[in-house]
């Protein structure tokens, strides 16, 4: 692994690198050929189906496999979850669980004031919701801005561009648990960062005891881990912008900032949508990364709503599937509405 930089470093030359690239191509080509061969076999039956049902109905055939899986592993479970949410007890099979009506929902929403989690009976759920919202807002904003900045820099004419791209992309390959572990070791009381701080005469900072710091590092680490991919998507967009547009702007002596706003940003917008949507999805679903890093603490300052649901269903001695299901149904509805809203907004901006 330590060899990675040396392999990826220079853009030009290096027999070894060429050999590697060649091997990569060979692998790629053989996979491609194999898959191509398999797909060729599908050609005939597909033609027969098309003849039988007509081209008009072909989209259903294309949709079928995906929706069979969707049905089995997404829609059916969601339906079962709704059933779970109106039952109580600890039995696993819905048929053995006593009906509880809307009790679980009533319990979740038993709040003095919805603005103060402390006044809620199930305060952890509401704290989770609030923390997740905070996390997503900071994380997505910073992620988009930083990826944009990095993509713009990586798009400049600089030496060792390939190497730098690799460097920024590399953390994407690490598992969330590993990412969190590495940073936990760096940030803890006796970690690398505090060792550095004390070397420069500072005082050790207990990052995981302070709610502000804990949230900051949760956001930071999550950006560290995922920025590479978003940078890459934006970089792709930047490179697709025809250079004659810029040359024309240069001839007119248009100010740089205006070039960026009038040419770069609008043409980059489709990629920006992908980045925003993907990072939002990832942000909302965040669980193991933050959990391993901060344990949801201090107190409950970085407890995410997905962690709450998981713990309610699994970690407590009484595995409360009913309450967890109710919470996930509520979360699901909120997310559904938010997704639609967000798409509507981004669409509008697109126009």
């Amino acid at each position, binding site marked *: 692994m330590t060899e990675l930089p040396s392999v990826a470093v220079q853009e030009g030359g290096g027999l070894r690198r060429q050999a590697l690239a060649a*091997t990569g191509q*060979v*692998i790629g080509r*053989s*996979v491609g050929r*194999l898959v191509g061969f398999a797909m060729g076999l599908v050609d005939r039956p597909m033609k027969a189906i098309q003849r039988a049902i007509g081209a008009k109905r072909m989209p259903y055939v294309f949709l079928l496999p995906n929706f069979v899986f969707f049905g089995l592993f997404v829609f059916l479970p969601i339906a079962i979850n709704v059933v779970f949410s109106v039952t*109580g*007890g*600890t*039995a*696993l*099979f819905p048929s053995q669980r*006593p009906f*509880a009506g809307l009790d679980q929902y009533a*319990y979740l929403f038993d709040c003095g004031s919805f603005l103060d989690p*402390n006044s809620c*009976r199930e*305060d*952890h759920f509401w704290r989770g919701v609030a923390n997740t919202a905070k996390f997503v807002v900071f994380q997505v904003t910073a992620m988009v801005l930083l990826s944009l900045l990095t993509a713009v820099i990586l798009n400049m004419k600089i030496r060792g561009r390939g190497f730098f791209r690799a460097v920024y992309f590399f953390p994407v390959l690490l598992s969330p648990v590993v990412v969190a572990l590495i940073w936990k070791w760096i940030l803890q*009381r*006796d970690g690398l960062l505090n060792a550095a701080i004390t070397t420069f005469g500072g005082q050790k900072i*207990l990052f*995981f*005891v302070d*709610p502000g710091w804990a949230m900051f590092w949760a956001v930071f680490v999550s950006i560290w881990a995922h920025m590479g991919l978003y940078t890459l998507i934006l970089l792709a967009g930047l490179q697709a912008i025809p250079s004659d547009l810029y040359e024309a702007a240069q001839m007119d002596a248009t100010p740089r900032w205006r070039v960026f706003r009038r040419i770069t940003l609008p043409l980059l917008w489709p990629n920006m949508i992908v980045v925003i949507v993907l990072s939002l999805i990832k942000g909302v679903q965040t669980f193991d990364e933050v959990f391993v890093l*901060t*344990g*949801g*603490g*201090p*107190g*409950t*300052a*970085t*407890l995410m709503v997905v*962690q709450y649901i998981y*713990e309610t269903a*699994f*970690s*407590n*001695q*009484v*595995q*409360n599937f*009913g*309450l967890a299901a109710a919470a996930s149904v509520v979360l699901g509805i909120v997310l559904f509405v938010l997704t639609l809203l967000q798409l509507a907004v981004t669409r509008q901006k697109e126009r």
Partner: protein
Amino acid sequence: MKRFGVPLLFALMAGSAICSPVHAQTTLRMAWYSDGNEGEVLADLLKRFEEQNKDIKVILDQVPYKAINENLPVQLASGQGPDMARVVDLGGISRYTLDLTPYLKDTGYWNQNFGPFLQWMRPADDSKSIPGFMTQLTVTGPFVNKTLFEQAGVAMPGVRATWEDWAKATKDVAAKVQAPFPIALDRSGHRFYAVALAEGAKIFGADGQPVVVDEGFKRAAQMIYGWHKSGVMSKELWGSVSGTAYRGANEEFKNAQVVMYLSGSWQTSQFDKTVGNAFDWVAVPNPCGPGGCTSMPGGAGLVAIKSTKYPKEVARVMDYLASEPVLSEFYSRTLFVPGHLGLAKKGVDYPSASPQAKAALKVFSTQASEVAPLAFALQGYVNSRIIFNAVISRLGQAISGETTLDEAYKRITADVDQQMAERAKK
């Protein structure tokens, strides 16, 4: 193509593993988690068993503890469990365990040596069945960095010293040697109750139902809360993670930053390895309070699972592993405190341990024989983990400053009530 062949080969291997030929042998599966080397030792013992019993094969499925704690109950509920499992939540799993009584060679041996612990593994209304045995008995107890005491020139409190005495002494030491943690306490319900029982928590009301927050409980909670305010304890353990997450101070103790670390017998082998000769550490008897000086017992048991198709074979494996010579070897190689009364009386020899580890294990073994009945009852109580989890979660919030101690009391009571009610719904 050649290179693509490697993953393909693996894929085929994986595929063939699923449909390997069936032998006349009975294959049993044991789910097992490890804190240290116990998985390795058990694998050795099982290999020996298989040599003597060619008709049985035991596959040891080594899993993370998380799988035992979170996934095993779901798997058992759906009928997908293993034949045997090493579990910690003995009460919670008790409804899935198999009574080995009809299959064992000598139930007298089991009752005589595992008697008091069997009660932990049984369902509430049952006082006869034999579900398994303790692979490890743990008792809580403090480890003290003796070298720090010597450096500070402070005398170590004696055998029947109270928690207050220790708090004062350790704070003194910490101030003189500039250690950040006078006292560290694992973020765990067991460890909290070691303090709470000393302070006189009664746990159960007159009707046998839990009354968690009583005078003794409040005294302990107040004391620990106060220690965080006065700097006797650092927020890093109790105040830094949420919910029921466990946090220990192994690293801090190893780096001589902790004067007194309330943890338990299971740490002995690790400290023996990691601390080495860097400083002198000793295990001391549990400090005292108005409620006595008892340790909180705990541990993990190997239990047989009801859904097994081969109860007879399972019993043969269990009989072998629980037999005195085998179990003695197991405890001695893992540096565990014996959960076997006969062995406890004789004393287990720990040849691989250093003198200070041996001394510590001796202290813990003595503590194990002096556990108060209430502590024993709490460990065996089916809903004990509900109580532990509520305490950790809510007390942690109070310590981190998110809520007050009074709010924490209310929420602990409410959490326990709610979860017990949920469990009672049929």
